[in-house]
């Protein structure tokens, strides 16, 4: 069994679920699951996601050699299953969340602490049937141990000094030197998965668009694609192109803010001011062309809600031209400014091996030599027809992550132009047939690859929907990036990661 088996070979012959699209889902028994664990230890298949549905645990995997994607499922009537965390540390937090929400125990998970459940909900195991009783007292969360004399603790958050999302970071330090950093999240847990269950598609799409406000296009797209997969339908071509256009506009707006934000955290506000101004132009163009600054609720299952008018197209072309020109000035300034480079170069290094181990994608992964990009790997339309590169950086420091964003910005600007040039005509939506099924989508958001899996009832309602944010696999790396850095450099590292809280907390 071991050796250079491909994922497809490995899963071949196992029972397959009929209505799972577009990738196969295989049903594993306990022994096959154990074989999978052993195989994972040998192979470098990427763990794409891990979630539960009723009494089943699903693990989505991808073989990077041939790009094959598959879901492995294990039925666990005793509400426990062998943990993946040993072979894929990226699974640790997913499994902790799974235990909190579904009450399914990952056997062999070394971390017994809850993750999303802070002990403040009126229920426990909210997604399990039956739900558990409310805890009597909030969880007394033990942080990981640190040994050493006269260390001090800096508890930061969930209410931060800046305008950012809530999360708790606990530094154990000797003066400025960080001995351990641990993040505790879950503060923005809104119970989206539970809210989505039983909702009609339109309402569920609205929730999907609000999983993470900065990735609203990407999540809407992922939701729409998953629904379309589950119902074996397809959006019209123009909708595909408009969706890609919105996705690239979202990427541009967010990357601009991040580049400026990192510089601002190094106390160079001029860059942020210019980046914010540019971003504002993008948002206003969004509002002018599609009617919403952040493009919320513009992508729906079956198509898109707004068309791009001729004037809108002209606006966007002009926007791209000015953006490209003004971005170049800002890039030159960043490149020229030793005081700024001194802050970013060599700070917050993520080693490529570690990024690979956690299966981190997106800006964080690509800045550490990881090449994955769903637009290329999955090549969903219209990206299969577009010409673009997926840049990577070798060094994995803050500087690399800034350059990664700059280069992605340039690619996106070129993509917007290509999309304007090749935009096909035709209808905007196609009705979604009312039928059941299981669908999965992989979509590249500005942070990285979003996975969204859902199961629809025959009545066309959402039974279970699991969105997996790219930050699940990026957050843990932040705890390693702080190594050999001082407390004062953490905001820079954190900003350069810019992981999602809301998307991860669900």
């Amino acid at each position, binding site marked *: 069994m071991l050796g250079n088996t491909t994922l497809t070979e490995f899963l071949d012959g196992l029972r397959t679920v009929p209505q799972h699209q577009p990738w196969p889902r295989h049903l594993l028994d306990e022994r096959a699951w154990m074989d999978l664990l052993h195989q994972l230890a040998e192979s470098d298949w990427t763990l794409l996601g891990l979630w539960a549905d009723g009494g089943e645990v699903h693990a989505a995997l991808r073989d990077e050699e041939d790009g094959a994607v598959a879901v492995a499922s294990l039925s666990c009537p005793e509400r426990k299953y062998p943990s993946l*965390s040993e072979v894929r*540390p990226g699974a*640790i*937090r997913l499994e902790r969340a799974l235990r909190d929400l579904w009450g399914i125990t990952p056997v062999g998970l*070394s*971390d017994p602490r809850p993750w999303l459940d802070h002990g403040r909900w009126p229920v426990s195991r909210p997604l399990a049937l039956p739900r558990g009783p409310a805890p009597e007292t909030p969880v007394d969360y033990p942080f*990981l*141990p*640190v*040994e*050493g*004399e*006269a*260390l*001090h*603790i*800096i*508890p*930061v*958050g*969930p*209410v*931060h000094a800046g305008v950012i999302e*809530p999360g*708790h970071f606990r530094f*154990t*330090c*000797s*003066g*400025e*030197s*960080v*001995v*351990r950093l641990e993040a505790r999240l879950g503060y923005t847990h809104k119970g989206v998965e539970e809210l989505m269950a039983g909702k009609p598609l339109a309402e569920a799409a609205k929730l999907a668009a609000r999983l993470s406000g900065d990735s609203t296009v990407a999540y809407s797209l992922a939701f729409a694609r998953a629904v379309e997969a589950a119902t074996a339908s397809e959006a019209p071509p123009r909708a595909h192109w408009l969706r890609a256009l919105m996705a690239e506009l979202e990427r541009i707006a967010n990357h601009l803010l991040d580049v400026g934000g990192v510089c601002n955290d190094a106390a160079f506000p001029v860059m942020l001011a210019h980046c914010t101004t540019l971003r504002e132009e993008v948002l206003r163009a969004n509002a002018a062309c599609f009617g919403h600054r952040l493009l919320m609720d513009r992508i729906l299952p079956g198509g898109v809600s707004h068309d791009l008018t001729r004037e809108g197209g002209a606006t966007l072309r002009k926007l791209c031209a000015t953006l490209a020109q003004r971005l170049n000035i800002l890039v030159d300034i960043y490149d020229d400014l030793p005081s700024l480079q001194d802050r970013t170069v060599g700070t917050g290094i993520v080693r490529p091996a*570690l990024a690979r181990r*956690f299966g981190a994608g997106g800006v964080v992964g690509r800045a550490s030599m990881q090449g994955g990009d769903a637009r290329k790997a999955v090549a969903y339309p219209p990206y299969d027809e577009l010409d673009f590169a997926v840049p990577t950086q070798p060094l994995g420091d803050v500087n690399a992550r800034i350059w990664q964003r700059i280069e992605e910005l340039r690619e996106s600007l070129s993509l917007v132009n290509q999309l304007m040039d090749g935009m096909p005509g035709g209808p905007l939506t196609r009705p979604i047939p009312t039928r059941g099924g299981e669908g999965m989508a992989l979509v590249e958001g500005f942070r990285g690859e979003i996975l969204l899996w859902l199961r629809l009832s025959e009545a066309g309602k959402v039974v279970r929907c699991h969105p997996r944010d790219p930050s699940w696999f990026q957050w*843990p*790396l932040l*705890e*390693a990036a702080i*190594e050999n850095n001082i407390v004062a450099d953490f905001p820079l590292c954190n900003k350069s990661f810019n992981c999602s809280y809301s998307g991860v907390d669900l």
Partner: protein
Amino acid sequence: MVIGSAMIAFLLLGLAAPLGRRRPAVAGLVHLACLPPSLLLLALGLMHLAAPPGTPPQIITLPLGLPGLAGHWRLDRLSAFFLLVVNLPAVLAGLYGLGYAPHLPRPGRVAPFLPLFLLGMNGVLLADDAFSFLLAWEFMSLTSWLLVVADDGNPEAGKAGLTYLSMAAFGGFCLLAAFALMAADGGSFDFALLRAHPGGGGGVLAVLLVLLGTGSKAGMVPLHPWLPLAHPAAPSHASALMSGVMTKVALYGLIRILFDLQPVLGWQWGFALMLLGAATALTGVFYALMQRDLKVLLAYSTVENVGLILVALGLAAAFRAYDQPALAALALVAALYHVLNHSLIKSLLFLGAGAVVSATGERDINRLGGLLNRMPVTGACFLAGACAISALPPLNGFVSEWLVFQSLFHAPSLSHWAMRFGVPVVGVALALAAAFAAVCFVRAFGTVFLGRPRSAAAAAAREAPLSLQLAQVVPAALCLGLGIFPVLVSGGLASVVAPLLRVRLPTALLGWPWLSPIAPGAGSYSALMLLLTGVALAITTVLVVHHFGSQRTRRAPVWDCGTPCALPEAQYSADSFSQPLRRVFGRPLLAARELIDMPAPGDTAPARFRLEIRDPLWDGLYARLIRLVNRLADRVNRLQSLTVRHYLLMMFWTLVAGLVIVAVRPPL
């Protein structure tokens, strides 16, 4: 007469105290009984200082001592000033001991030696011949050693005692040899005769030996390592006397010999003293900054202040050699002012530390915290001491530091290039030391008295008893007084210095509220005016704020970013506080290394932090010396079996023998 009775009182007290060793209350009484003689000597010193200029020194000759050598005792202005320096803290220590000594683990081992220790120190100040001087000096060493080892349950104290004893023996021998050399040239042990033949002096070697002898006692780098071991090991009021006073007695020896008995020295000596002082100040304060033990921290801070005084003395010596007596007088006044200030401040701080230690049983500042709320008087007094030693106006520490900087900044273009480069470099060192001292005491006061308690003992601390409080309030008030009326003090000091340098420093060229020692336009300082203006501004501020602003105040939990965290570790520790400086300066000076073992993300194993600090001086010099001595000791196997008492006896007899040899040797 007065002197004699006071001395005898000390002696009797020392001898009588063991009678009551089984009763702790007696220890308190012995301390109480130390007060009258100390007060007497204090008054004597003050009276002599207040006498009109030109009053001759009082000289007493007692038929004590070696055959053919009477004991000479003499009270001049320098001695009188140091009587003040010694006996003011002695009074405080006595007062403090009254409430403190009975609660010591072994009060019977402290009470007899404190009066004898005072006797020794006063004796050094008044001695007017080498024999009496050395006798008193060794007496002071031995009694202080006994105080160091008073707590025999503590193995650290034993080690500290042994180190101290060897260093004291070394210092004693150096002084002995120095006097022998001086006497060989000057023809007599009598200081009066030495004084009469200036320049006779035994030359370079004698001065070097004096420097080693007194420097080792004062804590001069590199002879300081015993000091931070020994001073903190003694009971706190004895620590106060050792750190605040005994180091000053050692400096008295240096001043007496360099400025009175051996006044003809080249500028090189001043230069060397300056550099040594600068090194001492920097080393002391830097080590103080790294300490966790409150008393060790204070002891290292003593090393720093001794360094500052040495710089001023070096400047004075250099100016004198360049024939600029006015500036020499300024520097010497600065040195003496700081001697007085430091004796008070350090006593205050050690007494405060003692109150903290006895209230909590904790010397590690990383385990204290929040004491200001529970020990308000001790806390306020310690704050005053911390401000004073950090040279903050309007307290006294600033005045002496101001004077030192003035004498440094107004050093004219000294003719030798070494001085031209040396003076600014020493300036940098002093400025750094002053800044570090502030960091050190923010750290010390902040971790001990502010924040939240870091241990149960700190949370349960209670304010010290009344006599302990009184013994802290008095020096705190004096710190303020000596800071606000600097002209009065410097005027008195000018009269102390005048006979030595034959020039009277005008300290208030602009009138009495302004300390203006150099020239009317050259920089002046008036604490009183600053204070009054400050008070006026403060009143204005308070009135404005309260008239125009809201006056409501509400108590609320600390702002914790939304996560209540009651852990005491969620505030800076003392080590963390000084880590930035440790990181910048610690690598070269302490070979400090931080070893961090951070597990990978998701790994639940503990992260580990270890700090490696070594003292390069100890490793490089003393450790080798110890190895050498051990090898020698192996050879002289027989001596190894002796007890400490035998060693002491041997030391004493060697001393006496040496004196006898020198005494009977015919003058060359």
